[in-house]
């Protein structure tokens, strides 16, 4: 009796042991990311869903702080020989990642090696352009993308006697003046000053920021955004800043509350501001495409993206790469992309997901979420609007902002400020070019 029990127990133990033995062969893949709040939940859910869908690989997501912190953590880990398999890097860190040959594995190469079905054509071109080489080889996997839009306080517009949101820059300037008469501190303002007023502005007007297709063709690029149109924009803003019809709100998005509080009725910032507006704005609002100068021949062209993509680190085992490739295929699934788009407010990255969302009538109820997509797909991207890739971009944005601030504060003329921004940026580019792995 006792013996039989023992035997049964052994059999059960053996069965359990055998049954769970593949668990020992599970390949763990570290995924470092910078998503907080509801978007962190999305990341965790994606990892869990993938882990539940198969038993060979396990994606382990880890929150590593803000975008810059995550990038630095990844760099430090790499230097210590302990890099994660997948790293989420914001769009301006692209050049840093790309320059590190050997530290990263291009996504298109990975997918080809692992025999996973992967067609860059199925992604939105404005998104793939940003993360591909000039030859069209995709370097990282697009994950969360946004674009810049202009948020409009419709009640304030009505009060100031303006019928429709402005479409062009001259209209914005005129409306800002009218709005300023009703709102004492601010008519129009903006966040992410260099992203909006230099990077997006150039793409939207089909003019280059720098040579070599905005740096996509190589690191020996030279900045050229001190052009007449950019100067004109800054001159106008400086003029409006004098009486606060335009009021500067800082380099990052710290001033966004000025829109939701009703202080600045026109506000340019990321489309990812949407959940915040929805939760906090106590007035009728909408979002419209970025304004343009009508005299610019090709304007509006198409906008460029913000957000982040997933980079695969180099020097990992074959099993890990296999798992990562499978995970990316899993992420590209149309239904999954539709779901991601609708819950996170970030853009769908594939054409199919966009079409499907459109067909479902989602945008009729949420027209604001389609605005950034319409901007991105407005025209096929050109050399000037595919994206940009400059080394040391994070630091360079600070330098550019400094010069714009000098102009707005009246310490430099707009032209002087832009010239200085270009020449200081060029110095940084030369430094970066020198250290980029050949």
């Amino acid at each position: 009796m006792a013996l039989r029990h023992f035997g049964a127990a052994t059999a059960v133990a053996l069965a359990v042991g055998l049954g769970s033995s593949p668990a020992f062969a599970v390949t763990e893949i570290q995924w470092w990311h910078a998503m907080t709040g509801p978007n962190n939940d999305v990341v965790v859910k994606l990892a869990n869903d993938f882990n539940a869908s198969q038993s060979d690989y396990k994606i382990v997501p880890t929150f590593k702080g803000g975008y810059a912190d995550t990038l630095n953590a990844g760099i430090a880990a790499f230097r210590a020989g302990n890099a994660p398999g997948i790293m989420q890097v914001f769009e301006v860190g692209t050049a840093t990642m790309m320059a590190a040959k050997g530290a990263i594995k291009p996504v298109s190469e990975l997918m080809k090696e692992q025999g996973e079905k992967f067609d860059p054509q199925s992604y939105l071109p404005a998104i793939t352009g940003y993360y591909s080489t000039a030859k069209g080889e995709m370097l990282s996997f697009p994950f969360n993308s946004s674009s810049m839009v202009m948020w409009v306080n419709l009640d304030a517009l009505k009060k100031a006697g303006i019928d429709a949101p402005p479409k062009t820059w001259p209209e914005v300037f005129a409306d800002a003046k009218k709005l300023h008469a009703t709102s004492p501190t601010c008519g129009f303002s903006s966040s992410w000053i260099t992203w909006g007023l230099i990077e997006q502005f150039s793409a939207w007007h089909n003019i280059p920021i720098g040579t070599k297709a905005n740096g996509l063709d190589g690191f020996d690029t030279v900045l050229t955004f001190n052009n007449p149109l950019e100067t004109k924009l800054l001159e106008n803003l400086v003029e409006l800043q004098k009486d606060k019809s335009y009021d500067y709100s800082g380099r990052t998005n710290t001033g966004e509350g000025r829109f939701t509080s009703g202080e600045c009725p026109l506000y340019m910032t990321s489309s990812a501001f949407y959940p915040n507006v929805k939760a906090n704005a106590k007035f009728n609002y909408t979002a419209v495409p970025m304004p343009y100068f009508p005299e610019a021949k090709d304007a509006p062209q198409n906008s460029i993206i913000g957000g982040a993509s997933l980079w695969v680190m180099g020097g990992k085992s074959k099993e890990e790469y296999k798992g990562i490739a499978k995970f990316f295929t899993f992420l590209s699934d149309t239904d999954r992309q539709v779901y991601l788009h609708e819950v996170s407010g970030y853009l769908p990255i594939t054409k199919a997901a966009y079409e499907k969302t459109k067909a479902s009538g989602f945008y009729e109820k949420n027209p604001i979420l389609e605005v950034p997509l319409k901007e991105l797909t407005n025209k096929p991207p050109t050399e000037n609007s595919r994206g940009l890739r400059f080394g040391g971009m994070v630091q360079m944005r600070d330098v550019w902002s400094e010069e714009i601030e000098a102009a707005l504060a009246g310490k430099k003329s707009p032209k002087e400020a832009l010239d200085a921004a270009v020449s200081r940026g060029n110095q940084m580019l030369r430094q970066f070019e020198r250290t980029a792995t050949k």
Partner: protein
Amino acid sequence: MENRAIFSGRLLACLLVFPQLAISLIFFYWPAAQAVWQSFLVQDAFGLSTEFVWFENYVNLLKTPEYYHAIGTTFLFSLLVVFFSLAIGLLLAVMANRNIAGVQIYRTFLIVPYAVAPAVASVLFIFMFQPGLGMIARALQRNGIDWNPVLNGTHAMILIVIVSVWNQISYNFLFFLAGLQSIPKSVIEAAAIDGARPARRFWTIVFPLLSPTTFFLIVINITYAFFSTLGIIDTATEGGPNGSTSTLVYKVFLDGKAGSDLGGSAAQSVILMIIVIALTAIQFRYVEKKVHY
């Protein structure tokens, strides 16, 4: 008489000093040496390509006008922070040293701000001073002051000085209070009997007797203003607008972390280290002579 009466051999003495030495070596001299070594290199972020360039990082640094601007900003900022945090700390300590009802409660309240992390303090003040949203900013604007620290460099400087001072006052208060309480009451009473008024009693007796505390606090506060205000600047102004609140240590942080320019950042930190060593040496050489222990 023998001097080495306590330890019989060298071995035990060395053994007892060793932990202290080891800590200094590992946590101070080794990283400092690393910084010096790094400052001679040009390297990419991932450390994949390294080039030894001798003093090129230093030369480049000394060629940039923004660097001199940062030196000026640092000295101005440190001067303001050290002066105001010491002056206010002393004033509060003198007031809390009186015999009044509930003095313990006042003292506790005055110490609490030190428990607030610099970044948190920064955020609190940003809320109050943010143009258009903050209470104080609105009050200033109503009174005709066009307050705008995101665009006006002077305003930004005032903002970070206020936060830095506020965050440091409690520390100074604590030391000054301890210093005041160690001054023998009999001396002050004697002066009072001789007919010295409170102000005179303070400047001729109390203040000189506080000089060791004051000297210690000056050294600590300079180091604070030079190094520990990084979090405050990063949260409040990010060195802006137009570099007007970018101190030396903030530039080290920005270029090294955001810019991944490790060589240039290391060169800056070496120069910063030299400046602070020099300042401290000057203080101990000249200022300390005026201190009565």
